[in-house]
């Protein structure tokens, strides 16, 4: 295997971009790392060079070729809104941003690989879905939510780009729901609510990807990219009820009629933005992805299976009791107090 060379990480200030930069910094095959984002990274990334640029702006087409990357990693697809990225900007960042980035990549001479950190949400969640989606099953179910359509659209642009540039290894990583200590996202906030609402009569099968594996798989795919989509999912699956029991949560079942409105309300309260609809379906029907390509072709060995992630998550959050929840940063209880 040839050394990886110069890596440009787009969206380096996101959690995943920063984690990837840190991991790659330890890789001897990576000679240089350059990070691009709209704001500087929140953590110290050592020798990683930082370039402030917005991928939604065509200027990126002039900046990127100058950096002479061997590998471009796109971590700038965001799932959840935050203070700097309101909900209505997500479509722009995800779709238009990717489109501009692909246009910029066309101008880069000697680009060997393009790795995109996408989402398994493209598969959707449905009652008749296969227990484990393989990579060829995208769009088998209609894309029903706004986020799904966004992912579908950007995967379409990505496929086009890959077809037009056979000399570039284009790798689309489809990530399952991520959970881990030190991580904060609406799904984790949901799991750590003092009383967790569930949809009465439904117990979805979930796959929880440990944050260690999420970073590890992204780094592995950067060093050893393969063509086409790759599911990033752990082995096995765990039902929501068992996950909540393992972490000692109290639950309350909501009848389906109420659940629809309520889950949307809870979703926006926890900051899931455009993802709350995906959450509603995910927490009703669940989703499983086959990870054979990741294990055998990318060659990444997962540290945790679904159950292991759940146990680790439960152990690290053990201090939180039902009666006296100690809110973690970003929890709705904390934001109420402000």
């Amino acid at each position, binding site marked *: 295997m040839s050394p990886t060379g110069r890596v440009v990480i787009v969206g380096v200030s996101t959690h995943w971009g920063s984690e990837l930069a840190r991991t790659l910094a330890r890789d001897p095959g990576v000679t240089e790392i350059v990070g691009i984002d709209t704001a500087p990274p929140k953590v110290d990334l050592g020798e990683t060079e930082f370039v402030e640029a917005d991928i939604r702006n065509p200027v990126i087409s002039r900046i990127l070729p100058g950096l002479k990357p061997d590998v471009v990693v796109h971590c700038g697809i965001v799932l959840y809104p935050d203070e700097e990225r309101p909900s209505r900007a997500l479509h722009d960042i995800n779709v238009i941003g990717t489109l501009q980035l692909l246009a910029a990549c066309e101008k880069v001479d000697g680009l060997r690989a393009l790795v995109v950190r996408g989402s398994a949400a493209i598969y959707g969640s449905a009652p008749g879905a*296969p*227990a484990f989606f393989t990579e060829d099953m995208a769009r088998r179910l209609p894309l029903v939510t706004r986020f799904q359509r966004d992912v579908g659209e950007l995967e379409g642009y990505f496929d086009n780009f890959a077809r037009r540039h056979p000399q570039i290894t284009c790798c689309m990583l489809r990530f399952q729901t991520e959970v881990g200590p030190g991580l904060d996202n609406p799904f984790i906030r949901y799991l750590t609510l003092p009383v967790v609402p569930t*949809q009465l*009569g439904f117990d979805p*099968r979930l796959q929880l990807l440990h944050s260690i594996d999420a970073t590890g798989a992204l780094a592995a795919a950067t060093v050893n990219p393969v063509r086409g989509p790759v599911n990033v999912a752990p082995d096995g699956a765990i*039902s929501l009820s*068992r996950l909540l029991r393992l972490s000692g949560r109290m639950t309350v079942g909501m009848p389906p009629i109420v659940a629809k409105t309520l889950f949307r309300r809870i979703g926006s309260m926890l900051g899931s933005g455009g993802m709350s609809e995906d959450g509603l379906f995910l927490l009703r029907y669940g989703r499983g992805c086959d990870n054979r390509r990741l294990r055998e072709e990318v060659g990444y060995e997962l540290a945790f299976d679904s159950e292991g992630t759940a146990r680790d998550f439960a152990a690290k959050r053990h201090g939180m009791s039902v009666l006296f929840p100690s809110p973690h940063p970003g929890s709705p209880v904390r934001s109420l107090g402000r």
Partner: protein
Amino acid sequence: MSNQGRPDGSGLELEWVETVQETMERVMRRVAGEYHEDEYGFDEEFAEAVFPIWEFLYKRWWRVQVEGVSNVPGHGRALLVANHSGTIFPFDAVMMGTAIQKEHPLPRWTRALVLNWAFDLPFVSYFMRRIGGVSSTPANLGRLLGQDEPVMVFPEGAKGFGKPFAERYRVQRFGRGGFVEVALETGSPIVPVAVVGAEEIYPKLGESGVLARLSGAPYVPITPLFPMLGPLGLLPLPSRWRIEFLEPIDLSGYGPGASEDRSLVFDLSEQIREMVQEALYRGLVKRGSAFL
């Protein structure tokens, strides 16, 4: 642990206490989430817990007779293809599984492909999954067979499950033969199965279009007891059953790529359909009266 058996007979009491204690421990363990479920959501402990209900139905309620259960391979992959009926609940699948658990020299749990809309119904969705049901997609069937599991499929699907009483024991069209394709791909032997008796448990006299639209179910059947008697109408009638497992069909002789040969797939599918139909007629004669 054995009891300390005192002469005054309090040993019996102690045993009772221990049973309660064990049950409590098991309940506490489950509440803490300390149990196993496999990657499809099958929960063996749960399946064992509801098994006595199936046993009662099997032995006392439907007095099931079984023939040829040893035709089901004792280990490795196997595809069980049966006629479908039941109208309200797929008891035919449950009884096939119970027959293998109770009568087979090497008993094991059998998975089933379940009609997809079952997974859209509250409670039914997770009940089905816990006792070993998966949604009916070729991907699930292929994966389970690849893991050397025995799997039941009902290629008639909803057409067989919800057919009117007047059409009982007439095997409907076998879909597109997807199960044959997967069997060819995975080299799984096919065991045709004929289930007699499940047609009489909920004789479907008609359908209620209004209730179906209201509830979102694909159809709502009208049986002599349902929905007239409400939930009580869900009590299945005590017909007599007879399940016949036929000789397995070995598909390993067909070369690679055989699954893409449409005419071969349709031929095999039709052949199996006819075998099941013939076995049904035979079984009906052998069973005799439906209820007594």
